[in-house]
């Protein structure tokens, strides 16, 4: 596995300007993403986890330029994607794909499976019309669907089959990088396992890099190379899968991990959970200093005032917390 960064994300910020009140009389800013920096390495699965509203999906969208970044850079092949307009972005779109959560609303109900999968191939001129059927059949086989499904419509398929079609469509333009935005969250447990296996198989076969956005930590632990934990628009911790799950450093990561249930009744009954009190504060008015200080069990005076630095606590293990000392 190459350790070269495929994408370099530097100080990425995304603010949404909204209007509140019954008549939209109050302007406000949603701090969806603040100062996020990370490298996505070639061939890895980098997962982003966190509670709803923590900015993990916004990160995926902003990297792909589906949201315009407020500031910061996304470097891919030496080009800053955030500076590109839609037309100049187009050639990069081929390499950078996304799979969304809900396979029901992402497929056009009036297009057959074959048309949906073939569309990006024709758009990017990757095959002639004559070769198209063969290409589509090969892609469907790749995602574990019989080629005869090409003539079916989305409503004839189950949720798991639809998600396979969505994945086939993403694969159609031979991408390097796929954002999986809660790609398996809407599926039943037994189907989830099928899609996880499929994603792993495809990664091996085509050397894909994944940004895997999910809230199910058991799944994340299973498929990730590295894991980033986000809280209220900022990265709290980023480390290799084993380091993050075995020796988490940030108090938020610790609390998050302690909330994950296991399929072991005895362990579950006896374990002491570190339960976080309260809810995530509003991203409209994030707390000063460290955004986690309002719920942090070890918050100190400095946490209320100063934003903690994003630093290497150990080699390759980044964390933003005043209570954690770097080595």
């Amino acid at each position, binding site marked *: 596995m190459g350790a070269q960064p495929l994408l370099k994300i530097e100080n990425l910020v995304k603010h949404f300007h909204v209007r509140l009140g019954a008549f939209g009389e109050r302007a406000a800013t949603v701090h969806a993403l603040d100062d996020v920096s990370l490298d996505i390495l070639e061939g890895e699965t980098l997962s982003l986890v966190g509670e709803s509203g923590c900015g993990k999906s916004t990160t995926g969208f902003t990297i792909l330029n589906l949201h315009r970044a407020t500031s910061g850079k996304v470097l891919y092949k030496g080009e800053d994607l955030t500076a590109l307009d839609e037309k100049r972005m187009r050639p990069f779109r081929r390499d950078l794909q996304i799979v969304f959560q809900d396979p029901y609303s992402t497929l056009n109900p009036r297009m057959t499976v074959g048309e949906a999968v073939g569309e990006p191939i024709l758009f990017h001129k990757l095959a002639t019309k004559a070769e198209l059927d063969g290409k589509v059949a090969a892609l469907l086989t790749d995602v574990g669907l019989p080629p005869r499904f090409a003539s079916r419509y989305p409503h004839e398929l189950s949720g798991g089959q639809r998600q396979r079609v969505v994945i086939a469509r993403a694969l159609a333009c031979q991408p390097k990088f796929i954002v999986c935005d809660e790609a398996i969250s809407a599926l039943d*447990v037994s189907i989830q396992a099928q899609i996880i296996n499929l994603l792993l198989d495809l990664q091996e076969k085509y050397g894909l890099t994944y940004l895997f956005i999910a809230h199910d930590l058991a*799944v994340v632990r*299973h498929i990730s190379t590295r894991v980033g934990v986000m809280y209220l628009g900022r990265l709290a911790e980023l480390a290799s899968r084993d380091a993050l799950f075995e020796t988490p450093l940030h108090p938020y990561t610790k609390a998050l991990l302690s909330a994950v249930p296991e399929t072991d009744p005895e362990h579950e009954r006896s374990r002491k*959970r570190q*339960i976080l009190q309260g*809810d995530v504060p509003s991203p409209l008015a994030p707390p000063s200093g460290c955004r986690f200080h309002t719920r942090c069990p070890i918050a100190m005076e400095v946490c209320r005032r100063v934003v903690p630095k994003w630093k290497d606590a150990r080699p390759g293990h980044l964390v933003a917390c005043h209570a954690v000392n770097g080595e």
Partner: protein
Amino acid sequence: MMKTENRLLDVKDLTIEIDTRSGPATIVDSIDLHVGKGETLGVVGESGCGKSLTMLSLMRLLPNKIRVAKGEAHFDDRDLQKMSNRELRKVRGGDIGFVFQDPMTSLNPVMRIGDQLAEPLIYHRGMSRKQARERAIELLRLVGIPGPEERIQAYPHELSGGMRQRVMIAIGLACEPKLLIADEPTTALDVTIQAQIIDLVKGLREKLGMSVVWITHDLALIAGLVDRVVVLYAGTVVEDAPVDELYANPRHPYTRGLLASIPKLSDAPASRLNSIGGTPPEPGRRPQGCPFAPRCPLAMDICRTHVPKLEPISAAGSHRAACFAVEKAREAA
């Protein structure tokens, strides 16, 4: 086997049908399940397996075109299916509390949460408005909502998802029911909030001594919460066992597949999960024979023609499974 007298809820042979263009189709087929006094039962299954419909049918809250075709449901030795509407209204929200999955659609958006909490208290317990208000504050405090005196004035949209779900639980608990039925109450919530709610229900169960039915698709979530688990597949009970027994020694191939599908700590990184192939049958389009046969690794000829019965497979009779292959294993042993 648990004595029948200790059963608070005893459902026998419950069958639910839906009207389709081609006539009635069975979506829940002869379900047997029971809940003991003070017991917590987990009902597990994937979407469309009939777990929610089964519980809704107990309260006679089934949507249009879906009805109970046969079967009994005894609650405290009275058949819920035979009660008059008037009697049933006393049970709903009174002796049986219900927590629905989606608090955004289950709460009345134009009613203050204090009033929604007071409603069952005034109706079932004959409290005055003032008493009900005080009890509503108490209930909100019980479910861990800060500042309950002010919060009773709030409308549902002013609360976060976790808070709304707590309000739903408070309404379910308002009349100190003998049985609380919770239908995926934490599915829409984040893990940290989920852990808060599970802890809350554990504490309340001990304090109030009630029985709980917890409907979910998440086997990990209920591991530390329930006493017994019933696994549903395509409208039938495929396995029923005490919780430790079920996780340590699952017998039905579907339960085994389901447990194997969940990633575990001990898994090697990026290893392939043991997934179950295929997809569950659509509700109302169940195959002949065992509904799991088309996806089952152990399926034999008989599985495709005959429906296996839910039968005891342990000496004590507390572990039951509906599978021809399991039966065979026992005879061979």
